[in-house]
């Protein structure tokens, strides 16, 4: 079930130099939100934009829903101008979301790149158990929410491209080291959100280790509700190749189902 609703800005704060958290009052949408789902946001400030912008749900508390975003283009730039009491139209919650009912023997392993940590934090808050978060980024300023995860009782390992925080290199480096050291009967299950390269790398490890990996795909979107077929991803469903809609059938796919092309 999705809704369309005008949200009122009730919070808009910087998170480090490059990211912001926008909190909207959305009494209809917020209570429906599940980790891994997203909203489709329209900005009155951006008169001439025909497309909404998709953002993962970072928090949903009562009537309030937050997203965590980075300014990359004109839509996100215009979002920066949103002030308290401004409104923005929201369609959501959209997409399938992460599976939440894990077998009790499973250890959740989250892998985040950049703002990909947003839906994973929502996931961690909704999970009854704890696990480990691997978080990567270009530099220290791209490593968000590590302390918040620790506060929830999660282990956190950090990797940055420039070595300014945690290990230097890709986040999969840290992941590989950890996997190597795993006890044989451990049952890690992966949940990843970040750039395609990272998702694919996580998926490869899951498949070769015979584990499950839930990947949150990032695709340019038109409608966001499954109508336009702009966002398709080649997948294998019950053995058959088909085109899934990332917005509706995803954005979360199990690694085995995804057929990566070039």
């Amino acid at each position, binding site marked *: 079930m999705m809704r369309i609703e005008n949200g009122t800005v009730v919070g808009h704060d910087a998170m480090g130099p490059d990211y912001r958290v926008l909190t909207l009052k959305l009494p209809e949408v917020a209570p429906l939100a599940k980790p891994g789902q997203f909203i489709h946001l329209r900005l009155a400030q951006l008169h001439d*934009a025909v497309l*909404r912008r998709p953002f993962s749900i970072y928090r949903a508390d009562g009537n309030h829903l937050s997203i965590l975003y980075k300014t990359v283009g004109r839509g996100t730039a215009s979002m920066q101008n949103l002030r308290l009491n401004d409104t923005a139209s929201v369609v959501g919650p959209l997409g399938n979301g992460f599976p939440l009912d894990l077998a009790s023997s499973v250890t959740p392993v989250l892998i985040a790149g950049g703002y990909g940590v947003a839906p994973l934090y929502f996931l961690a808050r909704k999970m009854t158990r704890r696990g480990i978060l691997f978080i990567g980024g270009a530099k220290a300023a791209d490593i968000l929410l590590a302390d918040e995860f620790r506060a929830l009782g999660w282990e956190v390992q950090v990797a940055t491209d420039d070595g300014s925080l945690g290990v230097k290199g890709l986040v999969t480096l840290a992941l590989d080291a950890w996997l190597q050291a795993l006890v044989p009967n451990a049952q890690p299950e992966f949940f990843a959100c970040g750039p395609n390269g990272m998702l694919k790398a996580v998926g490869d490890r899951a498949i070769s280790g015979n584990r499950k990996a839930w990947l949150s795909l990032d695709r340019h979107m038109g409608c966001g*509700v499954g109508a336009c077929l702009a966002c398709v991803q080649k997948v294998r469903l019950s053995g058959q190749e088909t085109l899934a809609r990332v917005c509706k059938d995803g954005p979360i796919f199990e690694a085995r189902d995804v057929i990566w092309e070039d």
Partner: protein
Amino acid sequence: MTPTLDITLAGIRMKNPVMVASGTFGYGPEYADLVDLDKLGAIVVKGISLEPWGGNKTPRMVEVSGGLINAIGLQNPGVAGFIGKYMPFLRKHDLAVIVNIWGKTLEEYAEVAARFDGVEGIHALEINISCPNVKAGGSSFGTTLESTAKVVAAVRAKTKLPIIPKLAPNVSDIGAFAKVCEDNGADALSLINSFPAMAIDIETRRPILANISGGLSGPAIHPIAVKLVYEAAKAVKIPLIALGGITSAKDAIEFMIAGASAVAVGTANFTEPLTALNVIDGLRDYLARKNMTRVQELVRSIRI
């Protein structure tokens, strides 16, 4: 007195002249949580071909000033897939169902039409002779008078349903295309489809869309579409369904004054899913304000 909005267009009865355009509203269920389908005049479903079709590679869509370019490539589940998967849902709703059809050959167009003839709950066929995104058929059919005539006649021969050719915008003389459709048995016309267009990533120097080019839709094309509707209305007597960049009742009313009997909302469904409903309300308010009792009074009412 509340003005009445219901119309009968090419024999299709609709509670109002506002439809949602092919390719922008899926097959019905996609927007059903947000938009009460029973309030719409009609849905035109995404283009259907004989067999399932995969469409183009991604990226398939890019936003540009005042619109977007799409090159979906007519991905669809085929006639049987569509009927099996979506018609049960659509039959439960109170709105006209217009099926947009296409083929890679003349024979395919005719065959698709034949397959839909007599299917319960389908009110008309819209013939897409103008999709800029399928090379094998689509585009080329709609840009010469001869092939336009052939497709329309071929479909006409295979169905008793009302048929509605959907014209290409990138022609010099839209009136001639409208006329050739009318002469070959079209019951109404849809105009217009999106414009051939292209965007290039200046960093990579590659086209942004995998298909190289696509079709431009959205507010950018509205003033061009109004002119084409105005010209087509001068050329034919059959009713016109106008689309291209409608975002408000005002845009729809312009089309109706210029010559359209009905309108369809396309790209604006993405921007604001409630657009079609807003157009219906705005149209009713406008008619009331102008003391018109029936929406038909607006059609072709331009004062020159």
